[in-house]
């Protein structure tokens, strides 16, 4: 039978299908553009215009909080990509002098020891930053804003400045003192030391107290999980395994979003962020469950002494004393070697009145009860103890109100902040450190 003249010829039929497909694609693209524009418009009208850089920073901060608590520059993550296909999941190991340490600390320390054995280090002004993860985040300005502020001082015109960041996630006193002692014993020779801390001392200190162990011991979960022979406790082992898997998955998602540049578009950026925030929340939830399981174990008493009795006020006083005595020890150790020392009280979201919080910060800043209790009761006491430090001759900078006039969103959670926050902090710390350096030089002469 001859083909009907009404039926389209095969090439025309194919062209029709292609046209339909092209229209569908174009419609989809247009719809996506419309959705993207619509979303941006809605956010703009709500007073929260979409800024890709902010989403990227938030993703980086989340990655840091999930891995080792140290926010990194995006450029560094990209530069590492070919050699680091796996997300950098935290791999803390037991350490004889600081409780727990990052697994790569030995490599870092070997590099530091070699550097200080070399004569060229004598010409460099070496600044060491100690503290918890917020101090660890100083990495983001150590070779940028903070470094430049110091290097611009005339006394460093012919002397390079190197900033070494020794902040470790969840570290608190006496870990800072112990780490400095250990580094000095190994041959490290700082010219200046900054302790940027205070939050972990009261927040984690109170978290330990709530679990009925001493506030002086390291972050409970990190210590018990490693020291407690977790593999003997099946329930804890299963929870730890689950936590490990979820943390790996969450970090993988963040890495993918960052690699794909998802933050460039409001839709993918916001959706992606919501996705990983949910994952991060699950990780936190598992961590708390693991902590509860570990503290219920009979071996806790052996691995961590119980806390002393007392109400919250008394417990917080003890946490503050821990911070105060730690600062005095650091100051003494530095003074005996003519090392400039500056104690900085870090800012934190739950410290009432320390920052006008944005809606976004409030929604992201949720924290467990011991942390908020620790901060609410502890920060006024920390400020008073800081004044006492200053009276006794320790250089002290109260940076707890560093963000007092910042209306931008800086916090990514209850304690960590974005690069802009570190830049604000750098502008406070650099002149205070320079003053202390001058004082030490005058004393030396």
């Amino acid at each position, binding site marked *: 039978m001859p083909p009907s003249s009404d039926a389209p010829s095969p090439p025309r039929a194919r062209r029709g299908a292609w046209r339909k497909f092209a229209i569908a694609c174009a419609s989809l693209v247009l719809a996506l553009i419309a959705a993207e524009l619509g979303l941006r418009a809605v956010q703009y009208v709500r007073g929260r215009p979409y800024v890709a850089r902010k989403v990227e920073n938030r993703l980086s901060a989340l990655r840091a909080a999930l891995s080792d608590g140290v926010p990194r520059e995006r450029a560094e993550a990209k530069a590492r990509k070919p050699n680091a296909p796996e997300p950098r999941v935290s791999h803390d190991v037991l350490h004889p002098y600081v409780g727990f340490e990052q697994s790569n600390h030995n490599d870092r*320390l070997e590099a530091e020891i070699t550097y200080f054995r070399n004569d060229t280090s004598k010409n460099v002004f070496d600044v060491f930053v100690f503290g918890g993860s917020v101090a660890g985040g100083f990495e983001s300005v150590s070779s940028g804003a903070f470094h430049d502020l110091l290097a611009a001082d005339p006394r460093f015109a012919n002397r390079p400045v190197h900033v070494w960041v020794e902040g470790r996630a969840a570290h608190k006193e006496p870990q800072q003192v*112990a780490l400095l002692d250990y580094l000095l014993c190994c041959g490290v020779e700082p010219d200046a030391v900054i302790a940027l801390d205070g939050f972990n001392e009261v927040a984690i200190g109170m978290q330990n107290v709530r679990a009925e162990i001493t506030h002086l011991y390291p972050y409970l979960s990190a210590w018990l999980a490693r020291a407690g022979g977790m593999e003997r406790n099946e329930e804890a082992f299963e929870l730890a395994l689950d936590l490990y898997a979820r943390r790996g998955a969450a970090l993988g998602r963040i890495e993918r979003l960052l690699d794909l540049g998802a933050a460039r578009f409001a839709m993918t950026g916001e959706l992606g962020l919501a996705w990983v925030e949910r994952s991060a929340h699950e990780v936190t939830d598992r961590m708390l469950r693991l902590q509860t399981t570990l503290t219920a174990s009979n071996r806790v008493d052996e691995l961590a002494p119980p806390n002393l009795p007392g109400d919250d006020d008394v417990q917080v006083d003890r946490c503050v004393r821990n911070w105060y005595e730690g600062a005095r020890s650091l100051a003494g150790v530095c003074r005996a070697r003519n090392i400039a020392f500056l104690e900085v009280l870090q800012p934190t979201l739950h410290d009432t009145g320390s920052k006008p919080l944005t809606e976004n910060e409030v929604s992201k800043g949720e924290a467990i009860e011991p942390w908020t209790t620790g901060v609410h009761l502890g920060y006024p006491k920390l400020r008073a103890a800081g004044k006492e430090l200053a009276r006794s001759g320790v250089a002290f900078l109260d940076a707890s109100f560093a963000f007092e006039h910042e209306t931008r969103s800086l916090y990514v959670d209850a304690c960590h902040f974005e690069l802009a926050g570190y830049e604000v902090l750098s502008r406070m710390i650099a002149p205070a450190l320079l003053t202390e350096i001058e004082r030490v030089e005058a004393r030396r002469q």
Partner: protein
Amino acid sequence: MTSAAAKRGPLLRLAWVSGLLLAAFVAVELAFRGWLAFEKRAWDSDATRARIERSLAGADEHGAKTSRASEDAATVLHPFFARDTRAARKELDRALEFTSSAEGTLAFDVVVFGGAAAADFATNRVGPLTEALRADPRYAARPIRVWNQARAGFKQPQQANALAYLLDAGVEPDLVLVIDGVEDLTIALRNGRAGTHPVYPSTESWGSRLGRPLNDPARLQAVLAARQSEQRMRSWARTSLSLGLAHSACLGTFVVDELERRLAEVNAAQRHVDDVGTRELDDRAAVGPRHAGDDIAIVRTATRAWFEGALSMWAMCRERGIAYVHVLETAPHDADVALAQGERSLAGGLRELEKRGVPIVDARAALEASKTAADEPRDLGAAIVRAHLAALDAGDARR
């Protein structure tokens, strides 16, 4: 022959044989003692008994690692100085309670840090120190309390971290006394030669504790063997002590030789426990950073760690107006060339500490006048008090 006489016959023979044997033994004993005296090694039964008792004490130290020794001697991991004992923990609790009491504010509190010698001084030989302190009018009316925060096997920075921890906890000492040096060198050398960083704690107190004893049948087997050899050694030492065998030169020599053999067995078994304990570890967590293996480099690192630790401890005390005395202990005579070189380095470090204003005591010089071992605590106590009072007077003069 009557039946009674027949019965006495064997008994008489037995008495004769026993008497002859005893006479022979006495003859041999006398001859042996004579020979020992001729060799200028006259038999000293008190020293032998003390030697056996020391071996038993050493077994207790081992026991803490492999056996369920006494509750207080059992050691547990510590986050800031690798390991701790329940006894030291209890002592810290007592010190804290005392510090906040009315009696505590009146008392002069001396806290002792360091290794085995410091722990021995603080617990057994501290009397002369308190007497020498009381002789000074400033302390005559004050109760003096000595707290032991020294642990056998400690080396820097364990002492420095223990002090920082104690201060953070709220203890307020009046005098911090540190007696160390020997373990800082011997442990660092043992560590360095075995591939562990010299600044890390000893393998016994750190590396071997990172294993998984309950999951590892090989380790269980090794621990069991170590316990059995400890048990054999203990029972040999206890039996010989209870029978008073040390009174006889012949039997005492045999006992000591056998004890040495059993001790060597215990040490070998213990080393095996340590080897099994560390074999499956993330080595870097157990051994620390890489370090050049030669003895000169190890001694240099050990001396530096000791010096920096001492300087930090003094600095922490000075910051709070706490008096401080650092005693460099005397090392046992040893053929180890590196150890001898290390002692010279530590002596140099001690002089440098003195230059920086740290009150120091060189135990070797302080004990030169000691005629017997019994004089040592008195002479050391007096030297410590002299150094403390001199620093106090210098401080008063400056003010």
